[in-house]
């Protein structure tokens, strides 16, 4: 019988272009703050799981989790790296969840980090390209924005989704980010700003794309039973699910749905015995604006093809039907790749504790995180609930 698992500590660094700080500084700050937030000492930690996608390409450093344990002062506990491209953080969280649920470890720290601005933008793009099919997509001249542009074009073709609707995702996420002191972007933008920004891969423009960001996030997990010993309001992980799909986008039956998301969502709702309408707040993987629209449909919040209209009608705003990406999402809060999946959990923990300040969703009791690797070859979903 598996044990129930709760998050008792959550923290993140400021996301942004952090020229003064390196990978080690970022992850150590997030990790130490998370342990402090859990009201415990480092001695009680049994293991670390670290999510990072491309430390080898971005800072030339592999074997990264032993280094994290070192800089957090946690040697000699086991430290394991988890990699699933942009879903590395979410899969690290799931790995930590499994370790506690199984009873093998009592207290684990899950960290996620990426240091992306130590290399040129071109080199960062090449590193991110590793999330797709190198031989048959990237080698042929495709880029990551182009892969999502191919999805966007099909979504527009099949459902009449418009570039204005996609732009509204960016506008909303910047608006939320402006209320989040940890977010990369602190400014609001207009639809006009999006539509006038530089074209990257048509129909996607710069403001349809998440930025290149440095940052780290961490959470502390333990069994629900033990959680109350440390904190008054533990946040229980009531569902954890993960699914995979073809690495290359062109091998999928449909470009307008991520089957890994659909499958993981079904499993997560089953595990939590909930329906999409029970979710009060959700962080989805909006690496590009079209990705948020597709995710909002695949997660069951809106019918397939109606995600664009839902954004246009404001249904995903704070305090609307389903608030999506209150942190600002990947678009507004930033996307330090390996950190993103963990940061999503940090945002939901803050929302469920009532600590999200200017972007607080009223009476939020159940929240969801949705983290995607590449163009959809991995999807990992968690559902969190207040357990006090």
């Amino acid at each position, binding site marked *: 019988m598996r044990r129930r698992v709760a998050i008792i500590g959550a923290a993140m660094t400021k996301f942004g272009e952090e020229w003064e700080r390196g990978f080690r500084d970022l992850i150590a700050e997030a990790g130490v703050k998370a342990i402090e937030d859990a009201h415990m000492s480092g001695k009680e930690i049994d293991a670390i799981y670290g999510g990072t996608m491309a430390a080898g390409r971005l800072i030339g450093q592999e074997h990264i989790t032993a280094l994290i344990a070192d800089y957090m002062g946690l040697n000699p506990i086991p430290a394991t790296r988890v990699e699933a491209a942009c879903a590395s953080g979410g899969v690290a969280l799931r790995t930590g969840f499994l370790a506690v649920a199984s009873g093998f470890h009592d207290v684990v720290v899950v960290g996620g980090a990426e240091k992306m601005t130590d290399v040129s933008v*071109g*080199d960062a*793009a*090449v590193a991110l*390209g590793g999330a797709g099919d*190198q*031989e*048959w*997509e*990237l*080698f*042929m*001249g*495709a*880029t990551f*924005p*182009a892969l999502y*542009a*191919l*999805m966007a*074009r*099909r979504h527009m*073709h099949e459902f009449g989704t418009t570039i204005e609707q996609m732009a509204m995702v960016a506008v909303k996420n910047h608006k939320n980010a402006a209320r989040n002191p940890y977010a990369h972007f602190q400014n609001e933008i207009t639809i006009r700003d999006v539509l006038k920004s*530089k*074209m*990257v*891969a*048509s*129909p*996607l423009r710069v403001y349809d794309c998440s930025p290149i960001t440095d940052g780290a996030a961490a959470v502390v997990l333990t069994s629900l039973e033990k959680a109350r010993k440390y904190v008054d309001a533990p946040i229980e992980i009531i569902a954890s699910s993960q699914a995979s799909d073809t690495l*290359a*986008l*062109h*091998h999928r039956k449909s*470009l307008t749905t991520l089957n890994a998301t659909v499958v993981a969502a079904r499993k997560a709702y089953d595990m939590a015995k909930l329906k999409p309408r029970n979710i009060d707040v959700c962080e989805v993987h909006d690496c590009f604006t079209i990705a948020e629209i597709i995710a909002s449909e695949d997660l069951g919040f809106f019918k397939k093809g109606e995600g664009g209209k839902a954004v246009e009608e404001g249904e995903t705003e704070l305090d609307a039907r389903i608030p999506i990406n209150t942190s600002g999402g990947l678009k507004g809060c930033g996307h330090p790749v390996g950190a993103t999946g963990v940061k999503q959990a940090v945002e939901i923990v803050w929302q469920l504790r009532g600590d999200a300040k200017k972007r607080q969703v009223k009476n939020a009791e159940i929240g969801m995180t949705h983290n995607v690797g590449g163009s959809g070859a991995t999807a990992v979903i968690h559902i969190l609930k207040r357990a006090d």
Partner: protein
Amino acid sequence: MVTIGTPMSWRRIPERYGLIGSECEICKANFFPARKICPNCRRRGRTKPIRYSGKGKIYSYSVIYSPPTGFELEAPYIIAIVELDEGPRLTSQMDDCDLRDVKIGVPVEMVFRKIQEDGKEGLIHYGFKFKIAK
């Protein structure tokens, strides 16, 4: 630039130059790029090479204005997912065509082109691109 080593590039020559994929003799499914193991039949499958006609239709497309390292001189260029007449889809650049003619559903055919090169003294990688069919 995406680093493709010499052995890696050479072993893909049949596929890139001749659009050679594979077909499973058991379930009749065909694959591009070629697969040694049929994912449907696994150990019960038996694959053999097949050559595609090189004809297909545009399934989706995008014009890339921000090129990756190594493709700077090409930008802006068109990237498409092409659905081959035999079924499989692939990602390819579109060549020799006017952007106004590029639309979902338009018939296309394979052409042989240079894809990229490893600097001035390195390997030149050739392979398929597609153009609007006459």
